[in-house]
């Protein structure tokens, strides 16, 4: 389905959707664009720049309660309640990379053996209305990881800015459902203009880097700790890269004791932290930041592709590069491993 929606009508659509869904949209606050719960009257900021944080929280909240446990007398009669998510979400105005990022979760969170009901409920009840990018930032490299500035994968509706509105294309039945709204109009021949814009956006990104040799090359460098120490020298183990990343799916589970009740909480975790793999005995298989960065880069560009049909666990959004306070650039690390020869 191809339709056209004006900028004004897109805001009206967002406002209408708030009646039945939680709507997340890019909102500027204190100079930073982040995805916020959108309520009627709020101002969207879809075009200034890519939101600092990805829309990951729509399908994988930073913190969520998995279980609550009531206990009148500690340990005597605990009652466990699953706190599965409910309701529908709509993400409006994310970039294609942010929507595509969540696809990396699928082969991990839903397998023949194991199904993560929290993730699956949110994924199946969240509609992504993405906006194709028209000008890459210097940190963008989606075109090198099997994607592009108008990639529909992971989105339900893909918008392309044309004049004072957007050409909207449905990607999934859920997207088609949203586009049945009377706020959408006939696209006429604007589709051609949208195609031209998308081609132009892709051209602006230049030649894609070939990561085909990365899985083997990274493994070949596994024991070369001099290499990893050099690559991680600038890293301060803050974990900003992991929190900003649309594809980082690792989590911690902790209990929050509230006296007569406790909650089992799942939170985004950070593989750059020393405690991520610290064992009870005091032993740590990844004792230094060099070991940890090696695992982070290795997971995205080697282990995950090896396990999941060659798909790189990176959507190329560049947030980890842009938000790193020390200037660590994952592209340079993978390139260095690829270029390295004995």
């Amino acid at each position: 389905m191809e339709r056209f929606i004006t900028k004004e009508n897109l805001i009206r659509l967002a406002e209408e959707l708030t009646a039945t869904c939680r709507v997340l949209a890019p909102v500027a606050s204190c100079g930073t664009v982040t995805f916020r719960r959108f309520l009627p009257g709020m101002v969207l900021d879809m075009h200034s720049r890519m939101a600092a944080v990805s829309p990951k929280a729509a399908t994988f909240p930073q913190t969520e309660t998995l279980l609550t446990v009531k206990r009148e007398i500690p340990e005597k009669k605990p009652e466990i309640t699953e706190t599965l998510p409910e309701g529908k979400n709509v993400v409006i105005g994310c970039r294609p990379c942010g929507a595509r990022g969540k696809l990396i979760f699928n082969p991990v969170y839903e397998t023949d053996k194991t199904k993560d009901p929290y993730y699956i409920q949110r994924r199946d009840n969240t509609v992504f209305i993405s906006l194709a990018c028209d000008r890459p930032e210097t940190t963008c490299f989606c075109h090198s990881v099997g994607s592009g500035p108008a990639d529909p994968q992971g989105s339900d509706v893909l918008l392309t800015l044309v004049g004072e509105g957007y050409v909207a294309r449905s990607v999934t039945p859920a997207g088609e459902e949203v586009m049945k709204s009377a706020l959408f109009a006939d696209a006429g021949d604007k589709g051609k203009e949208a195609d031209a814009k998308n081609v132009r956006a892709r051209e602006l990104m230049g030649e894609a880097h070939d990561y085909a040799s990365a899985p083997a090359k990274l493994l070949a460098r596994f024991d070369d700790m001099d290499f990893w120490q050099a690559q991680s020298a600038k890293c301060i183990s803050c974990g900003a890269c992991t929190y900003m990343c649309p594809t980082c799916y690792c989590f911690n589970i902790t209990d929050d004791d509230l006296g007569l009740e406790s909650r089992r909480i799942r939170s985004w975790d950070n593989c750059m932290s020393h405690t991520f793999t610290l064992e009870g005995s005091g032993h740590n298989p990844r004792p230094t930041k060099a070991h940890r960065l090696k695992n982070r880069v290795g997971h995205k560009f080697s282990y995950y592709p090896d396990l999941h049909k060659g798909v790189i666990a990176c959507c190329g959004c560049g947030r980890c590069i842009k938000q790193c306070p020390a200037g660590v650039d994952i592209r340079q690390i993978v390139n260095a491993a690829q270029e390295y020869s004995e």
Partner: protein
Amino acid sequence: MNANPYLPDMATIVEVIQETHNIKTFRIVINNEERMKEFSFMPGQVGQLSVFGVGESTFVINSSPTRKDYLQFSVMRVGEVTTRLHQLQPGDQIGVRAPLGNSFPVEDLKGKNIVFVGGGIGMAPLRTLFTYMLDNRKDYGDITLLYGARSPADLTYKAELPEWTERKDVNTVLTIDNPSEGWEHKVGLIPNVLLEINPSPKNTVAITCGPPIMIKFTLQALKKLGFEDENILTTLEKRMKCGVGICGRCNIGTKYVCMDGPVFTYAQLKELPSEL
């Protein structure tokens, strides 16, 4: 396991055994009778025990599936969850998510001679398989158990050691690191005693678990005795949270210890990136 992999079964602690100054063994029964009856697992598989309000940690199920009155876990007191577990009494309620992970290849081991080499709390996973083999004794060849600890006080499963040493159908050798008054068994480090016992590698599988330093020298001793990498089994420990291959911390390269392990052959371990 429940359809929601994070949802534990409620269980009651039926017995607590003080093994050493910092190790207790917990026998638990799942409250839902149907689930307890249906509960099936194989030696080597692990479970997550929950103390609500404190957290969850991973332990091997060290009772044999051939003895199903209870599930047994041995817990060393090292952190928050284990400290709280140690304070619990029979009748107290905990959560259990089990079974998780792979298991020892009990079918492939049939007809083989078995050499168990356990050190300290590393005896826990071996106990499961050892008991399983005792209960299916005719399926296996000669069985040797070498179990060592720092001192007599550090040996777990003391209540069972007399039976294990007296049985004629197994060769049980106990050792401690330094001489101790009244000790009637071997004195010496496990790898040295292993060389002394000198088991033949012919049609034999060695199964070892213990502290990393013990494993390291035990592997050297086994190689010296002529054991092939494929015939050495061990079971790994990693910090785990979900236990079902999602949370992302127990991987060694592409392998997840909670799903692909915890049981690996030495040959498999050599194939993995060196990140133990």
